[in-house]
């Protein structure tokens, strides 16, 4: 196995590209990112590891705008993310310049995934160590979308998804609780204490939620959970 994992361009005998799989490992170790698509809203949440006291947390923006109607969050190597995000932003403007149309979410996802794939098939480079969650609205139909890409360069559309640390358990939670109209609540529920949440609507674009708003929603959810717990225990004891 050791002989087949050095270079990206070498397949192993059982058909693995080990460098890509190791990149996926890097993603699995990264901060969790969650995305949920509703009927007219899309939400992204990213786990924030507790900020160092001296660090200016505002300079660490984990959910970024690619264009007025597209946003991206990712899990994995954040430095690699900067490169991809920069290329994607340029592509968004370039597309507007050449065809006088904003990109669709699928187009820019395909572009980013294509870029990630290129780096799995070139000599002397390593794959990007991140998976992205891309949200946005179709510029003409206004339909919201959520896409995910990964280091291998595959991409697909999702109603709700998570990537990064604990993504499996978060995804399970999403599968259980997802309903077509869901908005912020689902994301925050699965997130936990330190999260950055951004909501995108067709008319208002991307809006980062303030800490106060997030706290309020978390409190609401905790209250709901407590009420549900109480309801479960209550009748049983009486009987």
């Amino acid at each position, binding site marked *: 196995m050791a002989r087949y994992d050095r270079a990206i361009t070498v397949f192993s005998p059982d058909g693995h590209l080990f460098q890509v799989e190791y990149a996926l490992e890097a993603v699995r170790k990264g901060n969790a990112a969650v995305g949920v698509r509703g009927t007219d809203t899309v939400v992204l949440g990213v786990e924030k590891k507790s900020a160092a006291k001296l660090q200016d947390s505002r300079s660490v923006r984990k959910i970024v*705008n690619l*264009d007025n109607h597209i946003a991206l969050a990712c899990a994995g190597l954040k430095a690699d993310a900067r490169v991809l995000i920069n290329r994607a*932003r*340029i592509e968004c*403007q370039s597309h*507007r310049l050449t065809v006088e149309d904003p990109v669709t979410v699928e187009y820019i996802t395909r572009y980013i995934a294509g870029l990630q794939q290129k780096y799995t098939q070139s000599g002397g480079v390593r794959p990007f160590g991140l998976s992205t969650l891309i949200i946005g609205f179709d510029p003409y139909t206004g339909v919201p979308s959520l896409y995910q890409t990964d280091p291998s360069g595959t991409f697909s559309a999702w109603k709700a998804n998570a990537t990064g640390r604990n993504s499996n358990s978060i995804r399970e939670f999403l599968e259980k609780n997802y309903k077509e109209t869901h908005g912020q609540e689902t994301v925050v529920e699965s997130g936990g204490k330190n999260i950055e949440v951004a909501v995108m609507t067709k008319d208002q674009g991307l809006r980062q939620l303030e800490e106060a708003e997030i706290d309020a929603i978390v409190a609401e959810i905790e209250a709901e959970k407590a009420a549900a717990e109480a309801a479960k225990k209550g009748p049983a004891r009486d009987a």
Partner: protein
Amino acid sequence: MECVFGLVGNDYAIVVADTSAVHSILVHKSNEDKIMVLDSHKLVAASGEPGDRVQFTEYIQKNVALYQFRNGIPLTTAAAANFTRGELATALRKNPYQVNVLMAGYDKEIGPSLYYIDYIATLHKVDRGAFGYGSYFCLAMMDRHYHSGMTVEEAIDLVDKCILEIRSRLVVAPPNFVIKIVDKDGAREYAWRESVKPDAA
């Protein structure tokens, strides 16, 4: 034959451009909008070679947008003007853009500003400026009637005076003009001045 002019007031800037698209002796259309909204608080009125005009202003617009996404904050008017000038200067001794630009913008701390950028990359920050044959008449009119701290109504009145001069004194005067304004509420179209109803298209 193309006329572009503009002026700065106490908390707004106005730019005016004719709306004729001309090729030799033929007028293609008389409702061509030559004032591009560069971003929420900037206007670029351009005149010159039609292909270059659209190509260059769109290129500037997309690069300004890219800057904003990359850096999270918009460019100031001065920065955008200097960027524009830089692009003209770089292309000048290879493949010049034949485009003259009046860039008007409003910045929160600075207020309104107007930049005169000609096709050989001259940059001047001005109170009032004009390009084209119309400039002979507009500059004279504005020199006579402009004073700092004009209200929007006074400025529009001056604009109308300039348009009247152009229409009456310039031999191939363009029939229609568009007026756009930028202030703290953003860049937007203010009015059209039409003496020939443009095509239904």
